């Protein structure tokens, strides 16, 4: 399921539009991941406060969003571009890759919330495909 030239353009345009809200989107998506799917909290047992709004959730939400923004820049070779992030997730963090789909879903929900008019069905499918490719790239080094 590769991205067409048109879809890459849609993704770049939409991500440029959401950049001013990137911090909020990252924070909201991570908050929902931890709250709506409590099993994901197991990866953050070293944090004091896992509730929506906490400084650690905010900071890490920004980190995650930064990863997506970086992937947009590398949209022509997402697998190659995210190699070191894949190594991090595979060997150090050891996050079960099933969780990538969870955060993807919450990113889509939050994008829909903040940008209801821009998150059209065409943008939705392009972004969903893009995030799926990011998840695939992150899984690359696992085994």
């Amino acid at each position, binding site marked *: 399921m590769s991205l067409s030239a048109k879809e890459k353009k849609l993704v770049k345009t939409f991500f440029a539009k959401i950049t001013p809200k990137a911090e909020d989107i990252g924070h909201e998506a991570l908050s929902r991941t931890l709250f709506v799917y409590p099993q994901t909290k197991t990866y953050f047992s070293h944090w004091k406060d896992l509730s929506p709004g906490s400084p650690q959730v905010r900071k890490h939400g920004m980190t995650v969003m930064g990863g997506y923004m970086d992937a947009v820049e590398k949209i022509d070779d997402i697998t190659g571009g995210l190699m070191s992030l894949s190594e991090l997730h595979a060997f150090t963090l050891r996050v079960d890759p099933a969780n990538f789909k969870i955060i993807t879903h919450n990113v889509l929900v939050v994008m*829909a919330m903040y940008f*209801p008019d821009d998150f059209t069905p065409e943008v939705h499918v392009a972004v969903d495909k893009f995030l799926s490719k990011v998840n695939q790239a992150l899984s690359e080094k696992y085994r």
Partner: protein
Amino acid sequence: MADWTDAQRKTVASVWGQLDAEIGAHALARVLIVYPWTQRYFGSFGDLSTAAAILGNGKVAAHGKVVLQALEKGVKNVDAIKSTYTDLSRLHCLTLKVDPDNFRLLADCLTIVIATKLGAAFNPQVQATWQKFLSACVIALGSQYV
């Protein structure tokens, strides 16, 4: 099946109360656009070749309403979701022959469409409760598959 607190019952009713009749059509259109393999079940619906065609397709809109009416039964019977959807589950398995993974895809698209409508009001607590309700519906619809 699932246990519901009073707060959760209120949330499901409240979300439902804020939805207009078009939501079903929008959600079904998104399913067909975002997951195009789902079009296999709608061969008789005419032109589904582009997003614009799907969004303007009268049969898609009409079927979206049918789906929403069925969802209302679950909303009004949160304590008996499984029995509410027993017959529909059999229909989807034996007659319509729909892969039950599609129920999850529709649930996800419905959640996203609702997020566009409710905006910030669709906070994490509301999302958690609404997704709990939809998960129960998805499981119920798959329950009679053999």
